[in-house]
């Protein structure tokens, strides 16, 4: 069971690049153990220099963005590797919502599994939100609300974002997807039995041996 999420409010940082890949979000050098501090590793390749010191010009190293809760990104955010650690790094840093005109498929799925709101916005909304954040650089505080599917800026203006209604509801309930699927266990096992009868070649003896061994 995850904690239910219905809104995310806080500083919004902007990542003004298309095709930000998951290797950039969490470089592989931090993936060698199951216990690394992934929040510290977020965008590690850009955040730190070769000696491990923070690069002062990187957005997440500057106030107030060190406390960012929302990330505004451009097209095809999260492309590349399937590593779910990209989502964990964002969450452990404190990001609760990423808004972008489009997301890579696997990243998009991974986000919802971890209660990270992935909101789709129009390209024009991306530009508007970026301009609003720039104009309020001292306190770029935004509020993302799942019930109304709007993001409201420090100027008081609200803009729509898109999220499938079922996804929003699952986030607000904190659904455990595996528990929900396990309610279908009978249908799943019936499917497997029928497939074995119809296409026995798909489940040859060499494969099934582990069932009885």
């Amino acid at each position, binding site marked *: 069971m995850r904690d239910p999420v219905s809104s995310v409010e806080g500083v919004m940082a902007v990542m003004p690049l298309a095709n930000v890949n998951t290797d950039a979000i969490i470089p592989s050098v931090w993936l060698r153990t199951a216990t690394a501090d992934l929040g510290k590793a977020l965008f590690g390749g850009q955040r730190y220099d070769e000696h491990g010191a923070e690069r002062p010009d990187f957005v997440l190293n500057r106030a107030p963005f060190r406390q960012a809760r929302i990330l505004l990104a451009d097209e095809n955010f999260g492309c590349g590797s399937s590593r779910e650690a990209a989502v964990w790094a964002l969450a452990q840093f404190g990001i609760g919502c990423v808004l972008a005109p489009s997301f890579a498929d696997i990243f998009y799925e991974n986000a919802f599994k971890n209660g990270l709101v992935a909101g789709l916005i129009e390209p024009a909304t991306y530009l508007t939100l970026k301009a609003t954040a720039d104009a309020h650089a001292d306190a770029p505080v935004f509020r993302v609300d799942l019930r109304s599917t709007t993001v409201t800026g420090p100027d008081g203006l609200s803009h729509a974002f898109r999220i499938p209604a079922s996804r929003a509801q699952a986030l607000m309930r904190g659904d455990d997807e*595996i528990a929900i699927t396990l309610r279908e266990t009978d249908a799943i096992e019936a499917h497997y039995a029928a497939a074995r009868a119809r296409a026995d070649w798909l489940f040859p003896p060499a494969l099934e041996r582990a069932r009885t061994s």
Partner: protein
Amino acid sequence: MAAPATSFDKIWAAHLVARLDDGRDLIFVDRHVLQETTCAVAFAGLKRAGRSVAHPELTIATQDHIVSTDPGRDEDSNPGGRELLTLMRSNAYASRIRHFGVGDPRQGIVHVIAPELGFALPGSILACGDSHTSTVGGLGALGIGVGTSEVEHVLATQTLALTRPANMRVRFEGKVGPGITAKDLILRAMGELGVAGGRGCAVEYAGSAIEALTVEARLTLCNMSIELGARLGLIAPDEKTFAYLEGREFAPRGEAFSRAVAAWRGLRSDEDAVFARDVLIDCDTIAPQVTWGTTPQDVAGIGERVPDPAGFADARRRESVAQAIRYMGLEPGMKLAGIPIDVAFIGSCTNSRLSDLEAAAAVVRGRRVAPGVRGLVVPGSMSVKREAEARGLHEIFRAAGFEWREAGCSMCVSINEDVVAPGLRCIATTNRNFENRQGPQARTHLASPAMVAAAALAGRITDVREVPLS
């Protein structure tokens, strides 16, 4: 009469368990492959919830990402990898999952061993916690790359809840010139369609140039579907596919194999099947491809030059091209041929099969790696390594000054100890040239095995067609 269907439609329909209220489909997963970096947290989640593995018989595990590839290595050779390797071995044992770890003759990269063991079959759905699972589309399987939560979901339920992808077709038509490989075809498609060109889609590759490819070449082509942004890529199986699979460990045998082939013949897309998007790649003019930037779409023919950012109309693209050229340490207008390299890497789930090593060895035979260049050859599996050694390929590579290593992901993901040092330039047969991918500040050029071999010998990026084969 049934509506015309694509290959993808037919396979998806045969695996549909239920339509979910949220619009997604619950899909049965016939085959599940585990690798060490994405399954530890999934097993921990299962344990915490008091759940068990629903179908261990449909699952295999192998160690590839973090293993050492040092000659004579064992599971402890890379101390940084010990935790994840040990966890996978013990989790697999406790769940009665077949585990092909270091020391097992079947160990290798997930996407290399799934086809060579006959674990991936035409018409099946195979899931793996790795984005390049689309590789098995080369056999006509749906290979679905997932994250760790979905690995846990498959372990617990043997299903995935997925949004049904749209149908897209990329047709490669025409006559491919000498020296042009599947890698060049998919890189060219990348340049034309972009890294988001297939987002949300199941991409079927078709056309005369695809039919002409060997099965191993088709695996290479489908491997990089994720770099097109696609959910998966596939090629309808044909006689070559059937011949490739016959006799493999987990493939059906005897009379069951004949019935399988009969079923597999029905997997082709119907003549009048409709694709939401249909694109054509003209193969007549494709030259050997090499990337100059930091995404796979930053690619050009070997005779071309590093582009000038000023030539791009879109301001954001202009900026990203400028940043890519800066990171890569190149100048606009430089010829790609002649760029000096420090490292040449032949390996990865894209290009580490026997035919890849043979293509590289044909270029290398009787020659020497250029002074100052480090060359590595890393077979994709221990089976590939054995077959290559039986043909004497290891001697050709070693005599030329290449390192001949053990099977693993090695210098593609660089999560192990095989890393390109900061600022050095590597030409690689891998699939990703992202910033820092092969190590902090490493610079990567993607190319085919023959092109990488040619560059290793010359010490600079070279048109392989100008290197006489001995």
